[in-house]
């Protein structure tokens, strides 16, 4: 700080605390709502203080029947979300680090073309090619399968660019030394490049896990079998009950549990998270 201005510092704190209160408001209300019973939430405005049904609601959502017809139980959907997020994270990192290795450490015909093909994926988000992508996955017989849920999401230009940029900063002497000692390309990759990339891989893990965990449109398109539903689809199903009332206390308990893993990841891995976010640019 350049100069000491106690009043301005006080205002700064006041502004940030007020900002946090507003930003946290919807989550606070969700947590409160998940501790009340359905009668309280149906009749009047949501209370601002916790109720006495915390254990009841959370044990119902974790163990009991699902909150809407035709949904698998909550822990099953949570497991699906976890598998999907982990497979996408590992898959994206694996194929991206290999592509970046090829592009930086080899000279071969069509290298430029390969780079541009990877780049183009940035311009084609799922949202703009819903129907044809659905059709291809259907033609390949990948609807309602783990392969269909994860493989089409694994291509990643941003992760490839991140690794490419990092590899360019690795000193050339590393490669020369490795070659003098008789190491082949894959030995160099495993023993030198991979250990050096640890921090980047960690940062990407945080970002990509969140990316996989929050996927919504894609699982909705390619799965009709409730056995593959993820938490995000469960959320939608729980609030679109056709007849009867929305079980808000269970919806909110479900929402709180669905938010928890990625939020904890961001808070406890904050350094890696910020690094991953600011270095992948997107």
């Amino acid at each position, binding site marked *: *700080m*350049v100069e000491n*201005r106690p009043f301005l510092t006080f205002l700064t*704190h006041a*502004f940030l605390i007020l*900002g*946090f209160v507003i930003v946290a408001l*919807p989550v606070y*209300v*969700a947590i409160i*709502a998940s501790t009340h019973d359905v009668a309280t939430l149906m009749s009047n*405005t*949501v209370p*601002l203080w916790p109720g006495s049904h915390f254990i009841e609601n959370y044990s119902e959502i974790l163990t009991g029947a699902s909150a809407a017809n035709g949904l698998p139980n909550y822990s099953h959907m949570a497991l699906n979300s976890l598998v999907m997020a982990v497979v996408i994270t590992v898959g994206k990192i694996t*194929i991206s680090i*290999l*592509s970046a290795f*090829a592009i*930086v450490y*080899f000279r071969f015909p069509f*290298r430029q073309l*390969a780079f541009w093909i*990877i780049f*183009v994926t940035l*311009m*084609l988000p799922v*949202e*703009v*090619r819903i*129907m*044809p*992508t659905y*059709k*291809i996955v259907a033609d390949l017989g990948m609807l309602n399968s783990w392969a269909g849920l994860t493989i*089409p999401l694994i*291509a990643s230009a941003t992760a490839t660019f991140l690794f490419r940029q990092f590899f*360019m900063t690795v000193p*050339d002497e590393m*490669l020369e030394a490795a*070659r003098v000692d008789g190491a*082949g*390309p894959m030995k*160099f990759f495993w023993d030198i490049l991979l250990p050096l990339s640890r921090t980047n891989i960690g940062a990407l893990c945080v970002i990509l896990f969140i990316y996989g*965990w*929050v996927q*919504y*449109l894609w699982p909705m398109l390619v799965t009709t079998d409730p056995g593959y539903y993820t938490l995000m689809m469960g*959320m*939608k199903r729980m*609030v679109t009950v056709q007849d009867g009332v929305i079980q*808000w206390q269970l*919806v909110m308990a479900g929402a709180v549990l*669905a*938010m928890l893993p*990625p*939020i904890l*990841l961001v808070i406890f891995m904050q350094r890696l998270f*910020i690094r991953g976010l*600011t270095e992948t*640019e997107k």
Partner: protein
Amino acid sequence: METKKTTFNNRLLPYLLLAPQLFITLVFFIWPAGQAVKSSFEREDPFGLSTSFVGLLHYQRLLVDPNYLDALIRTGVFAVAVTALSMLLGLAFAAAVDRLTRTGRIYTTLLVWPYAVAPVVAGVLWWFLFNSTTGLMPFVLERFGIDWDHDLNGTQAMILIIIAAAWKQISYNFLFFLAGLQSVPQSLMEAAAIDGSGPVKRFFTIALPLLSPTTFFLFIINVNYTMFDTFPIVDATTVGGPAQATTTLVYKVYQDGYLGLNIGSSSAQSVLLMLIVMVLTFVQFRYVERRVQY
């Protein structure tokens, strides 16, 4: 494009290393995009037995279709509103945290987590907060004489999704603005302080101009986010209604194609969206220099 000065000489290996990425990209990205372009020029008969080439018919229809033009304008309003709201708040929080030396980290932790909340969950949370029977906000707004019901009032439904979408994006903008502010040279700030300019003046005359690359980068990223990543917010809350008031371009592609099975028109809409993303990506990579560069 550069490589290392020394490289490995294997012929086949680089292709093997690239194969998985290229295979997925070609099969699940480029091929479907090509299919979308192709079927945007075709009409399929109702039974899907034959297709005929119809040229630019679908495009011509779209560009005079009031529903499509409305969705286009609506998406523009949505994108600008979300971008402006989340960038202004992100900048304000970043400027505040940048002033603090010791407690800054704590506030950063308190402000970054909404990034990790799924769009669909963000939508449901705000939907509940604004729910007309039990929600907290309608109760408060009633005191000010505002009758809130986003199930009936299109403008209110739009405000709801703007708030939910902006809320999620504040932390992203905050982190980038904070990184930008923290790399403003301290010597400039000190020189200005010695010349007698206060913190507010320094912010507007030194920090803000130096942040312009960050601001431009974030503008592009936020427009991109609002257009394409907010689908779950709309789908879980307003479902495009009431009376199409929250049907964005992406949501319309989904409605017309996946739900309405109008492949030709949906494909033409996809192609137009691809053009928009291409322009945004091109601008991002061509004109946006490395973020913090003085």
